[in-house]
């Protein structure tokens, strides 16, 4: 039977981490590792790409696979280069909400549109945590953050819905409270040939928690109380938003090369 120590030895490096006590980032790392373990995947063929922010540290330097820690918001086009460069690689992007949907929003939309065959985990804590807790593209209207001391004058983006509209094959949302479901969703993402996007609501006890007087555990409770698997409910929907098979970018490119009489270098 696989123990916690087995998982740590096989998948984790450079721990203890820099993550704050109670941060959801370590939990996403745990879920990611277990999904790979459950599917008995070859770690050597996994490449994890990230941008800048706390979430970017999930793969780099903590995940024991090939990692590419890039520029803010640009993990997805770097990942595109890796996937189109070598289709055999399983490419995973781990990014925060600001990195993925703010500065990187355009790349997210186009990667979903072209159904690039990568898996993107967007860890959504509703703000830019690493730099102090500034408001971001997913911060709710009225929320008080470091740069919205009088309440956020803008509304937050429903990123999963946007990715679904952009055309990603597989789109889902979970939270760090829903560890078992999250692991299964990540496994499904690995099985999906096209673009897989999982939005993961995750607690930041240091920024949001401290401002609202909540501990990491209490924030997890909040996720439990305020989410629902029922799409008709008023609560935040958790579950699958899309699950379709569509043509995938890197495969089409390779097919075209072969149709022209070439063999991918």
């Amino acid at each position, binding site marked *: *039977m696989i*123990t*916690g*120590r*087995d*998982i*740590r030895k096989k998948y*984790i490096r450079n*721990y*203890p*981490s820099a*993550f*704050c*006590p*109670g*941060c*959801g*980032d*370590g*939990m996403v*790392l*745990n879920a990611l590792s*277990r999904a790979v373990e459950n599917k008995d995947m070859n770690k050597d063929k996994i490449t994890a790409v990230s941008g800048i922010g706390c979430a970017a540290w999930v793969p780099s330097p903590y995940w024991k696979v090939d990692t590419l820690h890039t520029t803010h918001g640009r993990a997805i086009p770097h990942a595109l280069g890796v996937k189109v460069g070598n289709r055999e690689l399983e490419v995973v992007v781990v990014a925060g909400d600001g990195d993925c949907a703010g500065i990187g929003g355009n790349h997210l939309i186009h990667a979903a549109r072209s159904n690039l065959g990568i898996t993107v985990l967007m860890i959504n804590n509703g703000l830019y945590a690493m730099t102090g807790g500034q408001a971001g593209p997913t911060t709710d209207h009225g929320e008080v953050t470091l740069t919205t001391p009088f309440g956020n004058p803008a509304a937050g983006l429903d990123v999963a819905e946007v990715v679904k509209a952009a055309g990603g094959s597989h789109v889902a949302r979970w939270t760090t409270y829903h*560890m*078992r479901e999250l692991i299964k969703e990540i496994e499904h993402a690995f099985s999906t040939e096209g673009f897989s996007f999982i939005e993961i609501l995750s607690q930041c*006890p240091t920024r949001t928690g401290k401002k609202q007087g909540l*501990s*990491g*555990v209490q924030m*997890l*409770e909040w996720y439990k109380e305020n989410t629902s698997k029922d799409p008709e409910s008023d609560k935040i929907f958790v579950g699958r938003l899309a699950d379709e098979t569509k043509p995938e970018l890197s495969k089409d490119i390779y097919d075209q090369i072969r149709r022209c009489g070439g063999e991918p270098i």
Partner: protein
Amino acid sequence: MSLNIKIDADLCTGCGICIRFCPKDVLESSEELNRYDNHLTKVARVEDCIVCRRCELYCPDFAISVEEEE
């Protein structure tokens, strides 16, 4: 076969998430402080453990390991 629930004091940040998710109340906060000046988690009632491994699943720090030893 005996059960040994190990909590690595260098890794545990005392976040309390495992305590919250254990269905059998096996774990609790200890008096010992870690490098963050948080209270380390300790195994209080190993005999109640049903080896569901939820603690391992939820730990952000890979600090806890439920090991069955001969």
